[in-house]
């Protein structure tokens, strides 16, 4: 009897997991817009990784083209005032956007998730301090808070990353706090407690994995949000130092020569929009595929 039962149970378990993965794939790849987003992201990563091979010119050397050259077969997107190739700068700008986005999301989510779980797991003073501080931080628009922090720390890409990380902490903390409160009510957490497992163990081994699906959605969407915020900051002149390439700064440089060469600011702006769109769409697709109940909440 036992010989027959054990493999059957194992089999059914595998089957359930397999079908869940199948359902995920079916829902995730079903929507055209999600697929477009995914393709844009794959292209973006390829462009960022292979930038030195893809860029037709060195993005930092001035004078590879006449100043403010119009788009031509040699310079597809023309050149800026200093005669630097716009396409090459656009390609290198993808590295800035992705680097800032990923590092800031990693730092911000690590801190925010920790604060959210701790607040959800404690009562009284600790909980009140953390959550009211998060409420207070939510009173600052992300762009304003990161603008002030970056400006006070001094100009530079590292400070922009720090500023964006700090400004995004409350978003994660709030979501994780809510998730922790609801996951905590489950019987298996009570079972863990009765087995004598400590708070930290419960938080890391049981709450965090259960909060994972909504978190991955938030993180994906935040990548888009932070890239947009970084573009805003670099448009205002805060962030990467010249001659480094950032899309927001390129839009601003092009703005000054809008009549002579509109492509200078149109192209990087379109790049920002496509990338933010792609992260949002993939985030949407992940949400629908992982947990349709989250629709409207995330």
């Amino acid at each position, binding site marked *: 009897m036992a010989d027959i039962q054990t493999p059957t149970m194992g089999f059914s378990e595998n089957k359930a997991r397999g079908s869940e993965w199948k359902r995920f794939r079916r829902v995730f790849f079903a929507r055209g817009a999600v697929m477009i987003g995914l393709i844009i992201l794959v292209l973006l990563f390829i462009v960022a990784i292979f930038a030195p091979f893809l860029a037709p010119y060195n993005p930092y050397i001035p004078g590879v083209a006449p100043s403010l050259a119009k788009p031509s077969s040699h310079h597809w997107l023309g050149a800026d005032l200093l005669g630097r190739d716009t396409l090459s700068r656009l390609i290198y700008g993808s590295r800035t956007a992705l680097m800032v986005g990923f590092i800031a999301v990693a730092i911000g989510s690590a801190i925010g998730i920790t604060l959210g779980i701790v607040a959800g797991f404690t009562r009284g003073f600790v909980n009140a301090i953390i959550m009211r501080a998060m409420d207070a931080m939510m009173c600052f*628009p992300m*762009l304003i808070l990161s603008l002030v922090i970056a400006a006070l720390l001094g100009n530079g890409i590292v400070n922009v990353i720090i500023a964006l990380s700090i400004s995004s902490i409350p978003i994660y903390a709030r979501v994780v706090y809510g998730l922790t409160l609801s996951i905590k009510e489950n019987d298996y957490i009570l079972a863990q407690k009765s087995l004598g497992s400590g708070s930290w163990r419960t938080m890391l081994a049981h709450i965090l994995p259960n909060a994972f699906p909504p978190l991955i959605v938030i993180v994906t969407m935040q990548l888009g949000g932070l890239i947009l915020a970084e573009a*805003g900051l670099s448009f*205002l002149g*805060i962030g990467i130092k010249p001659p480094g390439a950032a899309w927001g700064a390129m839009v601003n440089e092009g*703005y000054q020569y*809008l009549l002579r060469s509109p492509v200078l600011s149109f192209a990087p702006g379109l790049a920002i*929009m496509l990338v*933010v769109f792609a992260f949002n769409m993939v985030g949407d697709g992940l949400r629908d595929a992982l947990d349709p109940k989250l629709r*409207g909440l995330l």
Partner: protein
Amino acid sequence: MTTYIIRRIFLALIVLIIVTLIVFFLMRLLPGDPLMIFVGQQSSVQAMPPEQIEALRHEFGLDKNIMSQYFSWVGGIVRGNFGSSIYYHEKVSKLLAQRLPITAYIGFLSLVFGALIGIIIGIWAGVKRGKWPDKVITPLTYVGITIPVFWLGILMIYFFGLMLHWLPTNGYTSPFTDFWLSTRQLVMPVICSSLFAIAANARQMRSSMLETIGQDYIRTAWAKGLSERVVVLKHALKNSLIPVITLVGMGIGGILGGSVLVETVFSIPGVGRLMVSSIFGQDYVVVQAITFVISVTILLMNLLVDLSYGFLDPRIRYG
């Protein structure tokens, strides 16, 4: 209900205190002598004789301990004294009085447009789910939430200003001086700063509408033979508006944050542009004041949303 209101106001007060702490200590915990921050140019301080520096230190109250500095700063704000700007050689409160109405006017228009247009097209897309209005509106809302506002501004300046000459490309005129010119100048900035809100509100309205029209009581309304207009506008709208109101209120943060970009693109002399120029001019007293005013505005808006929730949702009212 009274308990709910008192509780909300109490929480808002606590958050307000934390906000003042953040704004104050943000400027003080960072590296560098706060005197440099107050006086601005580092070179001018270094060139001064030590006695003069000490005199300045005393004048700005920087020789006192940090907590009493904090309390005198808060005390100043309560009396409407935000300190003096180094760059403009003027009281910050006077600068704010000139520029705040401009940002508030644009912000108010953007908030209203964002709510009205967002809700209307959201209802339309929700009711006509899968038909052409939905197929046009829904992808457009994705564009609306992803487009960088400064880039949208530049696109509009290029096409409507420089190519078609329909609208002035920048500047601001008070509506009391020249209403027509003022309105023409404001069309593009207001579209810019409300587009995100329009798109976000429309998305929320659509999904909230879809959820509501699937409920039993709506089926009953249809079964009674009511017209589509009455079912949608009278029965479904009320309940589906609740989540949208939160979003409309939260939109003020995005609009005020975006004002930094929009006012820069369109050269509007509001608080957003003052913020940017003060940051580059290291005029941190002004930065501190603006950050405080913006965060308090958002705090009040959140409180208002919370309280309106109590009126709209009986579960909260009696809960």
